[in-house]
């Protein structure tokens, strides 16, 4: 399994506040790697740095061998990012939004069409896709955004709380979609508060707290190591 993302000693400070104190991890091809931790642990900051939104204060990160600081434009071609609190343009119809986003990644009109076709299948919103995004429910917007994130089959999908705000049924659907795309070779870096979700989705997990990775491994391996029945107990034990 080749390495898609390599993070080495990544640091980020906001003034005197050290949000990341030097974290390291790797994500392989087709692997789902999850960051779990409490609010303010540094999960979103890590994801935003790898998504080229924030510049790191120290350390290194590479996506497919491209250095984050030197080649952010190259990295943007290989990744897609779904922020926790994301929205779509309210005045655009669902299909127009997907077309707008597809045109940034496609080299030909045919390729754009293929992206949109895939997105329509992922979103599964039927005729509602011809209506303006402003009329969608929160769940519909989230599915549209997930479809946008996965339609280009990026080398690395960065998903921050992918099921945030979704009901049980929609959450299950979204998890299945992510799992299916990972099997097709897309690497996924995600963060979540939902330990059940992490157990279901991830191949490997990193426990992050106060800007440091406390431990990492498979869900099963971590549960064995800490003799814990679930990841919540694992996390509590690791923090202690």
């Amino acid at each position, binding site marked *: 399994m080749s390495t898609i993302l390599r993070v080495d000693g990544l640091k980020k400070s*906001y*003034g005197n*506040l050290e*949000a990341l104190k030097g974290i390291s991890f790797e994500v392989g091809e087709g692997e789902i790697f999850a960051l779990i931790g409490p*609010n*303010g*642990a*540094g999960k*979103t*900051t890590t994801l*935003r740095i790898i*998504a*080229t*939104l*924030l*510049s790191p204060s120290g350390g290194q990160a590479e996506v497919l061998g491209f250095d984050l600081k030197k080649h952010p*434009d190259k990295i*943007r*071609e290989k*990744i*897609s*990012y*779904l*922020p926790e*609190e*994301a*929205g*779509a*343009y*309210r*005045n*655009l119809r669902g299909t127009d939004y997907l077309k*707008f*986003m597809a*045109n*940034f*990644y496609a080299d030909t009109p045919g390729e754009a069409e293929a992206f949109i076709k895939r997105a329509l299948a992922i979103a599964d919103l039927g005729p509602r896709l011809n209506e303006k995004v402003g009329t969608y429910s929160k769940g519909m917007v989230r599915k549209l*955004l997930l479809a*946008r994130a996965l339609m280009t089959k990026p080398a690395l999908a960065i998903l921050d709380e992918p099921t945030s705000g979704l009901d049980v049924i929609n959450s299950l659907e979204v998890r299945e979609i992510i799992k299916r795309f990972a099997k097709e070779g897309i690497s996924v870096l995600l963060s979540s508060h939902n330990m059940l979700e992490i157990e279901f989705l991830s191949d490997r997990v990193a426990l992050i707290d106060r800007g440091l990775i406390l431990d990492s491994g498979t869900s099963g391996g971590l549960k064995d190591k800490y003799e814990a029945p679930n990841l919540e107990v694992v996390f509590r034990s690791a923090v202690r």
Partner: protein
Amino acid sequence: MKKFKNLLVKEVRELVTKQLIVSLVMTMLLFYFIGNLAKTEMKRAQAVQKISVMDLDRTPVSEGLTGSLKSANFEIDWVKGDDTEAAVQEARKGDSNLLLVIPKGFGESVGRLEPAQVSTYTFLRSFSVSGIRKSEILKAVVSATNKYLSDDILRKELPAVPPETLKTPIRSRDFVIVKDRMAEGSAAAISGFVYSQSVFLPIILFMIILYSSQMVISAIAMEKQNKTLETLLTVPIPRSSIVTAKMTAAGLVGLLSAAIYMVGMRSFMGGMMGDMGSGAGMGPVIEQLGLTMNGTGYLLLGVSLFFAILVALAMATILGVLAEDFRAAQSLILPIVLLAMIPYMLSFFSDVNTLPLPIKLFVLAIPFSHPFLATPNILLGNIGAVIYGILYMMAVFAVLIIIAARIFSTDRVLTMKLRWRKKPVVL
């Protein structure tokens, strides 16, 4: 280029909402409607006017006066009787807005070379321009009659001397000099004519600056409020293209909005001013003084306007980053409004060259002052000042666009916020 076009089309679609179209169309229709109404009123004021006249004198002199009224397009409604109070009451009930009372002995007084008096009553039924114009026309008629009578008397009494020589022994020939050119004419009339020809330019410029700036600030603020900015910043398109697309879309929609507003306003002003601003007969004098804009002048003016808009858009881009949401964006336009307002007001009331040096330097340091000053400078041949203004705006734009590009290429685009109270950083 394909990706930029994709982004530009999206930006334009985001800006051109149904609300914007409806508000523009409604405003234009409103201006057009009011302008046409004013035009109709003015035409009515210039058409045949009714005037009630009570002639208690009935002499050739009084008949001369009423004859002049007929010549001035007045339709006379004769009031019978000899009671002025009753005449006022009768005229008030009728549809004429004017009453002229010529007293008994009017002709005799004129004959004896004693001041003769007539009374005019204007029924002020509204405060409209047309109502005021009617009484002005009547005054002009009385004045013309005065001239006719006095000339007649002077010709009889002193046949050897032309009346004009007696009435105006001193005459003035007015000359106006602009740079090295001279022409005969009134400075006030020439200034008024030039002003009437260029009065719309500052209004257009002011509106474009405000519209475009507001659109850029709102567009960036809306991206933040709707949580679309983060996604947009991770797509494979240069950050500079994101900035440029927003500025271009806002500039285009701003220009379009301003053009639509100006068509409406021109119709409104045309109706209000009628022919007053056309300055009939001024053409040759203006030509002689070189106060006309040639091709180079228009080009310089266009370049000056273009750079002013670019400066406004670049400023708005930086301010837009500071806005956390659409509501905050509304107040962030204030610095641009103030900077545009100062030269805008000055262009109406003052001449920057006559201001004290510190104030003059302050005004010239405002980039938006230069396009406001461009028209008078071009007409007066101060081309150097116009070019200096353009170069200055280019420099300001370059600095602002570098700052904007740096903000967008770093994480400041997400972390920069204008906060009145310090809040903890949310990770």
